[in-house]
Structures are given as structure tokens and as C-alpha cells.
């Protein structure tokens, strides 16, 4: 365990210093996340002009969903994009062999190898918006604890789905674009699920569990959903994570029997 933590520290300090070579990126990332946030807030403001309630959500509550979305995007930019989109390169260049010959869990290696500082603006804005909503809505301080846990579970869901999609490249190197599909679905997580027509809601809850990424965490923070929803979210997160590990093992079995 300490070995994994020490490895993680070195992974992150190395990739951080590599990314810092390109300082202009930081400005770009900040501008992009400001624009995204302003656009999202403007849309919510449009929804709520002339009314106080949309499908049972007040404007500040809807803003909380957007805060969670922004935070998740930030974490994805920092951790998921720089790692999972590179799996295809490991396969293409054959350097996955080196990863497999390291005495460390290969899924861990591929998922944590890089850390990009460019997710930081979104993480900070997300945390800011969530804090603003919690204070504005007069929620008890325990809401912060619930928020941390709920967002962590949401993150596990996003990670597991993303990792499984990214590892399809073991079979079909050309389908690395498939993760963009997931990203576009995630965009739907900007707004509360009740903002969507019923049919979409079903898809976004049961087919691609976008609801569990932002809406359910928000409901948990707001106290709109109780302990049973917590249990469901936790089961989904843990279940998907386990499936992602089994999936990776299955993919590797294929890789190691088919590659020459």
C-alpha cells in the first residue's frame, strides 16, 4: 500500500512537471471553464425566468447540480482524460508490454500514471458553486460531508464506465473515439434529470447512469433522497468498479493471447 502511494506521488510529480512546460495551457483551461460555467448559469437563468420551480427544483438547487457537474469535469480533465485516452497509445506502440511487466497492478498504473493541472480551474469553480449553494440554501454543515461522499461515488461511476470504454481499444485500436460518446452523454448531467422528457430520463438513469453522476448526488446533499438512494449509489459505484476490473482482466487475456 505504501508502495502504491509512493508510486502515485512520483507519477504525479513527474507528469505535473511535464505539463508545466506548457504554461499557456493554464490560461486556455481557465478561460474555457469560465465560459462553460457562464454558459451553464445563463441557461439555468433562462429556464427560471418567470418561474421559481422547474420539475421540483429551485434555481439554486439546479445550480448545485451544475456545481457537481463542473467538479466532475475538473476531476475528469485532471485524471481521466490524461490517463484513459492514452491507453490506446500503449496498445499501438506496444509499450503496454512494459506496463504488464512491472510488479504493479496494470489498471492502477494506466489509470493514475498522469495528472493534469488543467482540470484545476473546473475543480475550483465546482467547489465554489457547491459551497455557494449549500450556504445559500441554509443546509447543515454535514451537507459538505455528504457532498464529498456522494461526489466520490459519482466519480467512481464515471471512472469505471470510462475505463471500460477506453480498454475496448485492446480489441479495436480504431475505436478510441468511443470515449467521446460518453463525454457527450455526461454533458446531460449539467441539469437535473427532471429537466428532460421521460424517455431520456430512463436512458440517462438505467442505460448510461448519468443521473447517478450529478442529479442523485445533488438530491442526497439536498436531503431530497434518503439513505436508500445512498445505498443504491454506493452499490452502483462499487459494482461498476468491480466490473471494470474483471473487464480489464478479460481484455488482457485477449491481448496476451492475440498479440505477437
Amino acid at each position, binding site marked *: 500500500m505504501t*508502495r502504491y502511494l*509512493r*508510486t502515485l*506521488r*512520483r*507519477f504525479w510529480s*513527474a507528469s505535473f*512537471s*511535464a505539463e508545466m*512546460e506548457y504554461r499557456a495551457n493554464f490560461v486556455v483551461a481557465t478561460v474555457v471553464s469560465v465560459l462553460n460555467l457562464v454558459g451553464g448559469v445563463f441557461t439555468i437563468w433562462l429556464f427560471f425566468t418567470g418561474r421559481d420551480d422547474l420539475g421540483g427544483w429551485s434555481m439554486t438547487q439546479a445550480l448545485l447540480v451544475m456545481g457537481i457537474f463542473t467538479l466532475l469535469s475538473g476531476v475528469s480533465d485532471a485524471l481521466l482524460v490524461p490517463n484513459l485516452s492514452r491507453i490506446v497509445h500503449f496498445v499501438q*506502440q*506496444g*509499450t503496454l*508490454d*512494459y506496463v*504488464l*511487466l*512491472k*510488479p*504493479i497492478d496494470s489498471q492502477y498504473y494506466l489509470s493514475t500514471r498522469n495528472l493534469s493541472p488543467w482540470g484545476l480551474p473546473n475543480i475550483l469553480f465546482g467547489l465554489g458553486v457547491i459551497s455557494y449553494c449549500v450556504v445559500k440554501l441554509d443546509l447543515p454543515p454535514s451537507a459538505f460531508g455528504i457532498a464529498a461522499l456522494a461526489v466520490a461515488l459519482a466519480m467512481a461511476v464515471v471512472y469505471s464506465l470510462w475505463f471500460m470504454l477506453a480498454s475496448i481499444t485492446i480489441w479495436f485500436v480504431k475505436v478510441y473515439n468511443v470515449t467521446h460518446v460518453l463525454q457527450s452523454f455526461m454533458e446531460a448531467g449539467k441539469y437535473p434529470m427532471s429537466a428532460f422528457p421521460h424517455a431520456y430520463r430512463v436512458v440517462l438513469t438505467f442505460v448510461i447512469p448519468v443521473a447517478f453522476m450529478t442529479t442523485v448526488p445533488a438530491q442526497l446533499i439536498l436531503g431530497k433522497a434518503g439513505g436508500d438512494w445512498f445505498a443504491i449509489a454506493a452499490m452502483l459505484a462499487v459494482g461498476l468498479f468491480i466490473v471494470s476490473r474483471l473487464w480489464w482482466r478479460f481484455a488482457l487475456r485477449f491481448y*496476451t*493471447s*492475440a*498479440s*505477437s
Partner: protein
Amino acid sequence: MIEADNLSKSYRVADKQPGLMGTLRHFFRRKHKTVEAVKSVSFNIEPGEVVGFLGPNGAGKTTALKMLTGLIHPTDGSVSVAGHRPFARKAAFLKQITLVMGQKQQLLWDLPASESLRINAAIYDIDDTEAKRRIDTLAEMLSLDEELTKPVRKLSLGERMKCELLAALLHNPKVLFLDEPTLGLDVNAQATVRQFLRDYNKEHEATVLLTSHYMADITALCERVMLIHKGSLIYDGSLDGILNQFAPYREVKVELAEPITNGQMDTYGEVQSIDGRVARLIVQRDALTRTVDRLLAERDVCDMTVTDPPIEEVIGRVFTDGVAD
């Protein structure tokens, strides 16, 4: 240290005809054929041995190396490396081996090699003082210095390969699998890498299995070679033994007192070339002494040398003529 018993690997590959029609036909009706990349290969390598693995492209060398390192699962037969079954890829096994591939790199492109070394030290659970000691020793053996702190992308191919070797050996592996470690290097860099491997082998009593296209690597490092051809092991023994087995002839170069005319030397052996007073002949080994005696008795010989044919040529002939078939 390394034991392979009837090791085999076959693949099912798509058998597609060229052209658009072939592609369409392939889309609807897939045909597959089985390719036997490695066929019942058995050998046993003792601790500390340096063995050269030779064969033309596509002979099955890399496939065999991958089975030995546990990257691919054998179709048949068994392997044991350092007492482990490679394919389980247990940490205890992985900590004892290393794989260096000349055409693939593990160092991080944008960062100095020292960063990659720090990461490897953490992965292999080597503490900082020990890691520093090992890096210093290996860097000195490889005559690396400020190269370690320059971004890898700014290094020359030779410098990069040396850094790759350092990174691959930081955990003091007992078994080294080297796939074309000198590929594309200039003569000086090749010599440094060779010398380094020899020193490392001596110092750590490491077992080395190496493939190379450069015969000089093999002659400099390996006392034992294995020839693999179309997936089968056709020779396993000393380098000299190859000459005896596949080249039972010698090259005789004679210089006579007078210019040689065509046809004059035909009775002594197979004439390779005639240039003024010098002739080069190929003579079967069992007829060698007799031929030399005859030459000295019948001709006015000024100078004569008898040499082994170059090993590259012999091995090249083995692979193109398919002596094994």
C-alpha cells in the same frame, strides 16, 4: 534458470485476399488460417549464461521471448523462468526479470530519464539511498552523466538506449531478455552497450538471453547460440559449433610466384576468385590437409592463409537455404 519444454505458440489469423473484392468476401465469409509461430522448442539455460537467439525476421524470436517473459500464453508446452511460471506474472517473478526492446521505449519522452528512474524505484520498492547507489554505479558503467537530467527527447539514440538499459536494470534483475538492444546504434554506442552487458553479467551473474541482427553483438557476448528458423530450434550450442555443423569447409587464400590462369586451380577446390597471383578457394574440411599438401608440393606458393568462413555468411546461408528442412 530458464527452461522451456516443447514450447509452442500458434495464432489464428485472418486470411484475406487483396483488393476490394477480397475485402468484401472477407467481410461476409471470414477465412482463418493457423500460423505456428513457435514449434515445440525445448532448451535449458543455466544461471549466468549469455545466450544469443538468432533467426531471420518472423522466425519466432520475439514470440518466444514474450512467452518467456509471460506476455503471451503458450499454446502448448511449458516454461519456467527463475522457478516461476511466467504467465502468472507474479510480482516475485517480475522483480527478477527485465525486458529491453530496442524498438520500444519505456522512458517518459518529455522528462529527464532521472524522473522515470524515480518512478521505477517506487514501483520496485527500492529506497532512495539504495536507488541512488545503483543509479550511480550503473551510470558509471554506461558512462552516463548529465544525460540523465536532460529531457529524453533531446538525447541521441545511443544515449537514450543507455538510459533505457539503466531503467531496465535498476531493480537488479537476475534474468535479462534483450530484444535487439543495439538496434540502430552507431558502432561506438554498440560497443559501449556490449561492454556494459558483459560487465553486468559478470558482476551480477545474471542470465542473459539476447536477440540481435548484429553478429558482432553475438560474437562479443555469447558463448552459446540458438538458431531458430520458421519457429523451430535448429541449432543450440557453441558459436564455433555452428561452423562445424553448417559450414564444414574453410577458405584458403594462396599467393603464387606467378600469375594464375583460369582453370589452373580447379582441381584444389571451389574457386571463389582469382586476382593476379592470388586465388581464394573453398575447400571441404576433411580434404583440407591433403589439399594444402598438394598445393605446396605442386605449386610455387609464396603465401597461404586458411580461415573460417565469416559466421554471418554461414548463418545467412543456413536461413536462406533452409539447411534444416
